[in-house]
């Protein structure tokens, strides 16, 4: 992963213009799926989320710290970003970067890095999503038991 990252650093070049284009694509993808989001992600937060995502991507391409991205994915799940939104976001990111860099020589290592990013993001998201489901199941069970016991 680190070797891959070192190689990619030389080829990745996301100018501020590229970042703006990418942010636009993320925003569009997230808006299309905003109704899959749960409550802490109302429409007005989408722009902020897309911009934050770009900042994280740029940082990741620079440093390659997948743990941060994994934790970020967990946060998004806990805040209620919808499954459709995160899948669309990952897809928009992958396609967006590819369109930007595919004319550059040696773009494959960079795309590998992009894969690392989306994998870490989706893994974190799924881990937290499953945890939340299990927690809700347990709470539901306990609430029912207490209610029937009390009644």
């Amino acid at each position: 992963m680190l070797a891959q990252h070192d190689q990619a650093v030389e080829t990745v070049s996301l100018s501020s213009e590229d970042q703006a284009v990418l942010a636009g694509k993320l925003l569009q993808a997230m808006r299309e799926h905003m109704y899959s989001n749960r409550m802490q992600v109302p429409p007005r937060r989408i722009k902020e989320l897309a911009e934050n995502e770009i900042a994280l991507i740029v940082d990741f391409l620079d440093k390659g710290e997948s743990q941060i991205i994994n934790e970020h994915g967990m946060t998004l799940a806990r805040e209620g970003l919808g499954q459709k939104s995160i899948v669309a976001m990952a897809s928009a990111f992958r396609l967006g970067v590819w369109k930007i860099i595919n004319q550059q020589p040696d773009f494959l290592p960079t795309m590998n890095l992009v894969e690392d990013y989306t994998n870490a993001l989706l893994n974190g998201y799924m881990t937290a999503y499953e945890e939340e489901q299990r927690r809700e199941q347990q709470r539901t069970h306990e609430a029912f038991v207490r209610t029937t016991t009390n009644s």
Partner: protein
Amino acid sequence: MPTKTIVDASIPNAGRVYDYLLGGHHNFEIDRRAAEQVRLATPFLPKLMRLFRWCLQDLAYELTYVRGYDAIVDFASGLPTADHLHSAVAPGTTVIYSDRDPVCVEYGLEILENTPNVHYFQADCRQPIDYLNRPEVQALLKDKRRVAYIYWGISMYLTDEEIHKIAQDLHDYSDDSSTMAFYLQPYNQNTENGVQVRELYKKMGDELHFRTLPQFKELFKPWVADDLGYRTMEEWHGVESPLTAEDMVWFPDGTVGWGVYLVKGK
């Protein structure tokens, strides 16, 4: 609106159907089946529900940071999940949730654990004064009458008489600077699918009631809208209508619903 079927997991429950349509997991197979029937008849419903649920944090911010209320009494609260009022109020605000569903209350207490200044009681939102006068609620409000009341996403479960009585009772009870935040659900219930949906809810023990904006205004009297007025959900969130041309037949006013801060008329 919780019903007698709440603790019975073998009968669909409107509250759990609502939770499922919002993407929650506090529901059972029987609820999910009923929810899918509802969704089939009204495909726009999950979007509509998200639009009004997304307002909760705005309400919390507006009422406490902007208008300075330090006590919020929320009726028919449902589950106080991470997005609910208490997560967005100003520090030191007392938030009092209530719901008629005992499972919801038990579940809510577990979610809240020992969150400071946040409380959850079982109560019927149609009897607000009985509830406000209960010793456990009075111990928190300490006879305070400047309170923000919230009835959000519940209008369809209340009859005209009930809404009018709630408005009258809270108007008489509270002081001149109190506010009541209310979500208004319009709907054309005379369409074929509208009848079907009402029948589905009837099977779950709930009668649905829908009204036009002028009807709501009449029922709220003597409360009136504040300067923000009756805002459509689309205006509130700055989004385009989620309704298709086909859906519009359900919403003769062209919106999925309105949110309003009601205040005492001059």
